[in-house]
C-alpha cells in the first residue's frame, strides 16, 4: 500500500501518527488489520486529538448509515413494463402463445 503515509519513528523509537496519516489508516484501524505498534501509536494519538476522534466516528457513522438505506426497488417504468408483458401473455387465454 504505497500511497499510505508511513507513520514515523520518533526520537525514542516509538511510532507517532499525525492527523494526516491517521485519516488514511482509519479503515485498517476499524478492520483491525494494523500491526500492534501502529495501533498503539493510533491509540496514543486519539487520546490527545479530538478532531481525529470525530473523524473516526464519522467514518464509522458513514458505514452505519449505509445499512439504513431503504431496500432497492425496481424503477417504476421497469415494473410497468413487466406488468404489461404479464398482461400480454396471460391477459386473454386465447391470445397466449403455445409456449
Amino acid at each position, binding site marked *: 500500500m504505497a500511497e499510505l503515509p508511513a507513520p514515523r519513528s520518533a526520537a525514542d523509537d516509538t511510532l507517532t501518527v499525525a492527523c494526516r496519516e491517521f*485519516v488514511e489508516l482509519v479503515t485498517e484501524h476499524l478492520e483491525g488489520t494494523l500491526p500492534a505498534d501502529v495501533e498503539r501509536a493510533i491509540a496514543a494519538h486519539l487520546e490527545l486529538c479530538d478532531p481525529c476522534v470525530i473523524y473516526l466516528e464519522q467514518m464509522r457513522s458513514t458505514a452505519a448509515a449505509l445499512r439504513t438505506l431503504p431496500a432497492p426497488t425496481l424503477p417504476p417504468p421497469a415494473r410497468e413494463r413487466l406488468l404489461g408483458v404479464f398482461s400480454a401473455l396471460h391477459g386473454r387465454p386465447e391470445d397466449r402463445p403455445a409456449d
Partner: protein
Amino acid sequence: MPQQESGPSAVAAAVLEGGSPAQAELLERLRAGNRAAFAELVDAWSPMLLRVARCHVSTAASAEEVVQDTWLAVIRQLDRFEGRSSLRTWVFRILENQARTRGVRESRSVPWSSVFTDGAEGHGPTVDPGRFRGPEDRWPGGWSPAGRPTAWEPPPEDAAMAAEIRRELRTALDELPARQRTVVELRDVHGLSSDEVCERLGLSPGNQRILLHRGRARLRTRLEDVYRATTGEGERRG
C-alpha cells in the same frame, strides 16, 4: 393504476409448500392474467431479489436487469411450472441461475486485478491536504483550525436523520467508481464479511480494504458537505 382485486394474499400463498390448494388457486389466478396478484409478487419480492442479484453482479444496474429477466422468465414459464416447490422457491431458483450466468460473464469483463494500475481511483489522499498544517508548522500534518471536522448532530445512521441526507448518501454511493461502489455496497449496505467480499470478487484482502477505505472516505466527505450546508446557515431542523 387500474384497480383489480388480487383476492387472498398472493404473497402468502406463494410461500406455501408445492401442491397446496392455496398455491393451486394462486397459480390459477396468475395464469388467468390477474394483474393485481402478479403485481403483489413483484412488489413484495423485487427488493430481496435485487439484494441477492447484487451479490453476483458488479453493478446495481446489472442487478436490476437480472431481476427483470427473472420476472420475464417467470411470466414465460408460468404455464410450465408444475408446482412441486413453492412459487417463491421457484422464482428465487430462476434468479440464482440468471444472476450466476450474468456474474460469470461479467467477471470476465470486469478486470478486478487491474484495480490499482489505472491510477485515478487508487491513489492520492482521501482528505483534502489543504485541511492539514504544512511541514513548516509546529504540528506538521495536524488538522488546521479551519480544516478540522466537526461532529455530526444527529449522526446520519440515526432514525431521525433527514430523508435528504439518506438520498444524498444513496446518490453519492451510486456515483462512486464501480469497484469502490461494489465493495462498499457488499460490505456496508449488504453486510457481507470481508472474506465473503474477497472471495466473491477475487480480491486480495489488502486491495479490498483500500477500495473500502477510498469509497467510505468519499461518502464521508459528501455527508460532511451536507451537514455543513445545513448547519452552516442558521438552524437545520425545524
